[in-house]
Every structure is written in structure tokens, then in C-alpha cells.
């Protein structure tokens, strides 16, 4: 089964992180990633660009309005930021939890761990037009990438 580890931190945690030499952050995260690669469980993972640095890096679409409103985001007020994610392939919830525990994050940070759905989760809707179409779209995208590679 696959789990997604979603990195979340608060403004306070971001502030505390600034005191830490960035190279040390890279080293700690690198060692963590390496341990998961070595164990054969890491399928994917990306970091998300700094919200505060540039408004091109992040914005929010608010559906309270109709049509939805695109803004630079109420990031300063939410206190919770999504900073990156990993996707792991593990044998159990406990194994996912064990890897999550090892993540080198500081106080104020949280990891949200979510199971990634698999085709079996939609078995009851296998014949649904859009379930089938979505798979087709993914196909097209992969074919495009294959052509460009």
C-alpha cells in the first residue's frame, strides 16, 4: 500500500527554521531521504517552493465566491503551510508511521500521513465513464512524456 507524507509547518516553525544553516537542513533531509531510498520504499517526493519569497510560488483560489477568486493567499493567517510530500510504498500503517517518525522536522511542524488510493478503491465504479476517462488522460500524458524523452 502507498502512503503520502505531507509536510506541514506553522509560521512559528518557519521562523525557527531560519536560524538553522540551510545546508544542515539539506543534510538532515538528505539523510532521511537516503534511508528510505536504501530501504526501497520511496516512490516519489518533492518540496514546495517558499510561500513568502515570491507570489508566483503560491496563490489561493477561494471558492467562497462565485466565480472563484484567485488571491495571493491568506497564508499569513492560516499558520499552516504545506511544504512538501513523499510517497512511500510500505506493508502497513505501522511501517508508514515508523518512517514518518524519523522525519527530521522541528517543533511546530506536522506530518499528515494519508493512504494513497489504488484502483481497488474504485472497483465499484470501474465502469464509470469518468473513472475510465481519467485513466485515459493519464495515458495521454504519459505518451506525451514518452515522446519527448
Amino acid at each position, binding site marked *: 500500500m502507498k502512503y503520502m507524507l505531507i509536510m506541514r509547518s*506553522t509560521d512559528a516553525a518557519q521562523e*525557527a*527554521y531560519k536560524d*538553522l544553516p540551510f545546508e544542515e537542513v539539506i543534510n538532515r533531509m538528505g539523510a532521511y531521504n537516503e534511508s528510505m*531510498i*536504501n*530501504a*526501497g*520504499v520511496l*516512490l*516519489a517526493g518533492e518540496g514546495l517552493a517558499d510561500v513568502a519569497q515570491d507570489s508566483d510560488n503560491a496563490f489561493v483560489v477561494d471558492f467562497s465566491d462565485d466565480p472563484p477568486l484567485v488571491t495571493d493567499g491568506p497564508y499569513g493567517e492560516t499558520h499552516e503551510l504545506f511544504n512538501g510530500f513523499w510517497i512511500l*510504498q510500505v*506493508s*502497513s500503517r*505501522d*511501517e508508514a*508511521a*515508523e*518512517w514518518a*517518525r524519523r522525519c527530521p*522536522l*522541528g*517543533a*511546530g511542524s*506536522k506530518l499528515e500521513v494519508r493512504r494513497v488510493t489504488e*484502483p481497488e478503491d474504485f*472497483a465499484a465504479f470501474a465502469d464509470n465513464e469518468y473513472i*475510465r476517462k481519467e*485513466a*485515459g488522460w*493519464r*495515458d495521454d*500524458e*504519459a*505518451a506525451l*512524456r*514518452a515522446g519527448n*524523452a
Partner: protein
Amino acid sequence: MARRRGGASRGKRVAAGPEPSVAQEEPRRGAVPRRIEALWRIEGPRIVAALARVTGDVGFAEDMAQEAVAEALAQWPAAGVPRNPAAWLTAVAKRRAIDSWRRTERLEERYRRLAQEAQEDVVADWNPVPDDVLRLVFSACHPELSLLAQITLTLRVVGGLSTREIARLFVVPVATVQQRIVRAKKTLAAAKVPFEVPEPSEWEPRLAGALRVIYLMFTEGYSATSGDQWIRQDLAGEALRLGRVLARLVPREPEAHALVALMEFQTARFAARTRVDGTPILLAEQDRSSWDRGGIERGREALARADALGRGRGNYALQAAVAKCHCVAANVDGTDWPQIVLLYEALGRLAPGPVVELNRAVAVSMATGPETALAIADRLVAQGVLRGSHLLPSVRGELLSRLGRSAEARAEFTAAAALAGNTRERDMLLRRAAE
């Protein structure tokens, strides 16, 4: 940055320094045993490998590690999980080893060496040598052991699986797995198998052996010959994980990456291979939209890594390249069949065999037409190979049918049906014969 423990701190800063060892998490039933199992899967191989380095004996190391796990199961539910569980388990296992040697009063030198290491553990961080796990792979895949024993021991000591998990994967009783492991350890001890990475001259065949064990484990799960299909997929998944581990251990070996690529491509197509009721679906009729694109992408990356090493394509790389041709094609007609023909020709030069030749015939029929392909199939018939297998007559039946020679095709399908071991396949061939 303050050190912190798992879910307990919830946004609160925890002071650096000694921390309570009990994690204040929401209690889950059987949480500690399950956590130990998860820890074992992650850390077990390195613990056993580190112990084997100092004891020189994989079987003994594994026994001592298991005793440490038993002690953890007894202590941790009440005392809490220690901050560094792997170091705890290693230290306890080393102590057990010393006790055992003390009782038997043998191996004085090893005892002294280990006793000294155990002392150092108190202060030193737990830090196994990366090569240890590679030595573990070579010991578990030692040619002294039967293939089944190699697979079982690999799952156990390299994969970190419990006997219960292995029993579930092979659909056999736990006692059977325990016996296999005990026998494998005895065989290794009797053969005095050293815990080492083999000499350069032995390197290639031994690595090939390790790759073969992993691929056999995978095909056992992939072909789902018996038992519950989902459980077998677990076995294939575990083999893929071990393949990734091995490729990381020997990153300069193209065939290790190629094997990972092959397994990724095949796993990606797994869901489309059978209907809900277990009926096999032919490649041409498979719903390609249910192939796992992430897996195909990882397969492409792994194959690119193998190719980037610039040492040419081996057996697994060629097979992976064939699988890639299927994976990246939108449909059967859009498949690069000429490329597949070339790949099978290369495979035939590298590892000649009738099955490769038959696969080449199928590819040729798609690339150039059934006539040329039939000549290849006829040559195989003349050579008298693949007798007793339904593969050759079913391919000939297909080719004859495409050439419009229906009577001959019908005879071949009937002959193939009589040879098919799998009832699903037999039914399909009989249907073809009736068409």
C-alpha cells in the same frame, strides 16, 4: 532545532536532552508488537548484518537478533519504546551472543572482540557498515542453499519479514517456514560460509544468483500459479522492494537496475492482466488505461540508469526494454514491433533458447507478418523443442489462423488445449479451436 518525539509534542517545543521513552500517542490495540514488527522490517536487515560482521555467522546473528526482539516484546509494552530501538536491539543481541559463547566456552577470540564492541555500544551511535547488508544478500543467496531456501532466507534476513509474513506469502504453515529457516542456517554453518562480499572473480555469478533469487520471487508472485491472487501480489511487491535495495547496494551494476526496471514495468501492468474472476486477458485486449503510469515512469528511470552505465544491455535490460515497448505504446498496433524483434534477436544471442525464439516469432508476426513468423515456429517444431508445452502449438495456431489456414489452426489449438495445465488457458484455447 529542538529534538522532539513523535506525536507527543503537537506544536509544543520539547527541551533538548534526555526524553521520556514512552511515546504519548493515542493507544492502539497491540500497538507495541505491531510497532516492533514495523521496526524490524526497517532495521532488521542492518541489525542482523552488523551482528553477522562481528560473529561471522549469519544464522547465529539472526538467532540472537530474534532473542532481542523477544526481549523487546516482553519489555517495551511496559517500559516504553527506547529512543533508538535499533541500537537497543543490537546491544541486547550482542549481549545474548556473549552469554551463549560464555556457556559454550568456545571462540575465545570472537568473544573478546564482541565483548569489547558491546562496551563501546553504550556510548557510540548505532552505525552499521553499509557493506554489511550486501554481505547479507550474498550469504542469503549462497549457492550452497536450495533456491527455495535462498528465497526464504532473503525475505527473512534481507527483507526483514517475520516467519508469519513469509508463511502468508507462500501460503504454507508458519512451522514450515521456521523449518526452512533453521535448515538453511544449518546448511550455511555446516558449509562454513564466510560472511563476506565475494572475490572479484566470484562477484558476477554471485550477483547474478542474487538477482535471480529476487526475480524468481517476483515471478512466483506475478504468475499467481496458486493461492490467493492479492497475497501473491504482495510477494511480487516485496521482490520489487528487495530489487530496489540491491540496486542501491550495487549502483554500478547495470543488471541490478535493469531487473528493477523489468519488475516495475511488469508490476505496472499487473492490474490489467486478469479479469475480476481470474480469467487471463490477452495483451491486445488489456485495458491499458488501468496500467500504473507511476510504475512505468519508475521503470523507465531504472532502465535509463542501467543504460547510462554504458556497459551494454544484459538479459534483464533486454527483457525490460521489451516490456518498456509495450508499456509506452498506446495500443497493440502502435507498438514498436520491429524494435521488439531486434531486442529478441539480441536476447537470443545472449541467452539462446526456444522460448526466446518463440517470443521472437510472435514479434516478427506483428512486425512483418505471419508468414516469416511461421517459418521460425516451424523450425522449432523441426528441432523437436518445447514438446509438452502448449506455447508452441498455440502460437502456430494463431499464425495459421491469420494465414487463413483454419483447419490446421483448429488442430493446433486443440493440441495446445490438451497440453495447457491451467484450466483458464485451456478454455481459451478450446474457444479458439471452435471459432
